[in-house]
């Protein structure tokens, strides 16, 4: 048991994720279900564990209940440690007053004491809303080799999309000379992945400076990184190649789920290396009935399939009755699709019950967008939900 930790990870999990609409009504974005049996945060937590990082602070603020319960003692990720492990860090009241986390940098600033307790040489800053598998220890080695003050992981993005990201402009040796947030005319295609490694003392110094600056909005991307560049800190871009996806919108969350299926999925969860760990439920194996048709889909424990499932991701305990069709859809836990109903290009949150002969969503080619049904919604028989409708309540005409 190492008492001094080389690197402590701080995972920013306080974001509201408002572009996920009703999926984040009662849940913080990192706790949104993903990929049949995971939640978004499983990827970052598993990456930490697979990279040998056993001390992770999870900074929560928005709707933390589900997330707190999910992380619990950290046991599913082997993060229930005697010293270190996973710790939930909500904003708290101190002798000098109480404050919410005003930005990503402020959240870390408020928890500098937590970091100090483990006396780390390096601090890894992560966000809990990306899907990717990455070995942070390689990034740390790169950071040490370069003798950097700060290393930022970057990924190549297509030039026409680069203006949606924070772009790092680098020299040949990988050092960063300029950072542009969502540039209209991007000079490079190296997008920041929101993953930073700092030397602990460097981080402390810049967070304190940032805190002292009343004009700052206390954000890493907007304030701390530009300040460091201006003051001549040694900053390097660590190139990452592999699957990486920001799942901040309903569309991108749907796409990331679809990236798990196919003959050669963009993100293969079945590789023994870099296993993604999650809190498992106790459900029996899934059953495929005699009249069922299943193609190009992910299906997990507790599902009972009597109908048709095509190009879809089904979470635990989903029931598809005979004659029902689920196509191009993502169905969260314990949802049920009644006889003769068709669910297409849709996402259904947990425990949605679709009655008989309903029609939910419209094909992607209709260009109306993904239909999204909120948790616990019960659709009476023959309900029609048009494409692109995002709702937690029944349409008025049905009521």
């Amino acid at each position, binding site marked *: 048991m190492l008492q001094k930790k080389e690197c402590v990870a701080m995972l920013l999990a306080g974001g509201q994720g408002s572009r996920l609409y009703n999926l984040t009504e009662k849940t913080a974005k990192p706790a949104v279900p993903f990929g049949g*049996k995971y939640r978004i945060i499983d990827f970052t937590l598993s990456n930490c564990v697979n990279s040998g990082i056993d001390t992770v602070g999870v900074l929560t603020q928005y709707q933390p209940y589900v997330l707190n319960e999910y992380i619990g003692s950290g046991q599913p990720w082997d993060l229930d440690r005697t010293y270190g492990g996973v710790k939930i860090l909500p904003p708290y009241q101190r002798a000098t007053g109480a404050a919410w986390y005003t930005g990503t940098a402020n959240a870390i600033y408020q928890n500098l004491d937590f970091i100090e307790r483990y006396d780390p040489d390096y601090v890894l800053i992560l966000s809990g809303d990306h899907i990717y598998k990455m070995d942070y220890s390689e990034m740390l080695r790169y950071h040490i080799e370069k003798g950097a003050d700060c290393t930022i992981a970057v990924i190549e993005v297509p030039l026409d999309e680069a203006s949606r990201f924070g772009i790092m402009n680098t020299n040949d040796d990988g050092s960063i000379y300029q950072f542009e947030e969502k540039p209209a005319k991007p000079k490079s295609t190296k997008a920041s992945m929101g993953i930073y490694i700092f030397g602990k003392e460097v981080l402390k110094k810049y967070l304190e400076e940032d805190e002292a600056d009343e004009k700052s909005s206390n954000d890493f991307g907007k304030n701390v990184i530009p300040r460091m560049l201006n003051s001549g800190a040694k900053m390097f871009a660590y190139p990452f190649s592999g699957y990486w996806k920001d799942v901040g919108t309903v569309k991108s969350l749907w796409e990331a789920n679809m990236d798990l299926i196919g003959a050669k999925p963009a993100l293969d969860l079945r590789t023994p290396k870099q296993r*993604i760990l999650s809190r498992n439920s106790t459900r*029996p*194996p*899934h059953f495929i009935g005699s009249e*069922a048709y299943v193609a190009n889909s*992910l299906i997990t424990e507790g599902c009972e399939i009597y109908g048709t499932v095509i190009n879809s991701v089904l979470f635990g305990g989903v029931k598809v009755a005979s004659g029902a069709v689920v196509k191009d859809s993502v169905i969260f836990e314990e949802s049920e699709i009644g006889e003769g109903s068709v669910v297409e290009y849709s996402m259904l949150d947990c425990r949605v019950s679709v009655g008989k002969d309903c029609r939910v969503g419209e094909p992607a080619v209709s260009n109306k967008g993904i239909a999204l049904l909120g948790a616990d919604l019960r659709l009476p028989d023959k309900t029609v939900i048009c494409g692109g409708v995002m709702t937690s309540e029944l349409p008025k005409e049905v009521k």
Partner: protein
Amino acid sequence: MSVTGIIFSNIHDKNLPELTRLRTMASVPFGCRYRFIDFTLSNMVNSGVTSVGIITQTNYQSLADHIGTGKDWDLATRAGGVKLISPHITAFANDHIRSHISSRLESLKSATVYIARRKEDLVVLSDCDVICNIDLGDMIAFHEKTGAAITLATKKMVLTPESAAKNVIVEKDETGRVNDLLIYPLDTSGEHSVSLNIMVLDREKLLNIVNDAAAHGYTSFNSDVILRHLKSEKIMAYEYEGYFACVSSLSEYFSCSLDLLDPKVRNALFGVKNRPIYTKIRNSPPTRYSDGVTVSDSLFADGCLISGHVENSIIFRGVTIGKGAVVKNSIIMQDSVISAGAEINCSVLDKNVVVKEGVRLSGHASLPFYVPKNTIV
């Protein structure tokens, strides 16, 4: 009253020589993701039993690996939890003693130190191969209410002469008091109450029984303890009405496994409210189905990659079924690979078997073809 559990892990190993060559009866894989012992362990945990001793004798590495710290059954606790009770063979042991340990009573002698140290009032003793979802809490309440010395769980079953010869028939009066046991009777058939090999009794009493048996050289719980005390002690039968299967041959293993394809059986085992069956967590991703697969009437665990035809089969975790492969009426255990174009029918493939391209294997429902662990065909 507080209750502790004891499970016999090597009981009936000889019934399934194929599957127990490298493992205990307790750790025989069953139902896509479970091992036999998961049912008994879960039944105990679901009834509030928080300390369980598992008596082991031989071959118990796979069992130790499966149980781990016990955390998947919530049995990784300081007060109690799960303990493997390894065979207590002293330096003076000889072959005579080893060969002797074949009955429950004999193996309990190894566990007297453990039993004496427990603090609970009652003990529930169970075999490891009792596939059922029984409310032991109700059985314990029955035991207390009737003031029984020993309570046996029984179930009414229709027996053939063959199945009767492998079972213990419990005869009882209208109050439920046991008045006779027929142990492995010959020439018996029809409906009878059969012992599930689960019993509840006072912990101190169990110690006395075991010590008395040691002094008298008794070896069988049924014939030496229960039959001898039918008159002097109140021995009661608790009637269980749910699904129950006890596997006593490979063909029974095969048919009991395929019984799980019946929704009624699945529901009786896995669909009971507040009584889930727990097992070791393996963190497999969901099962992925490719395009052009045809699957019907089959159960799948997580972690599989299915690209072929699967019909009427039980597929364990991490199995790969290649393009154009055909699997019918079969049980394919963990991490096995059925290569493209292979055909499997009426077979039981143990863990980690590789069936190469185009190979055809077939048994018969009455005599399934068994492929041992790690075989390449």
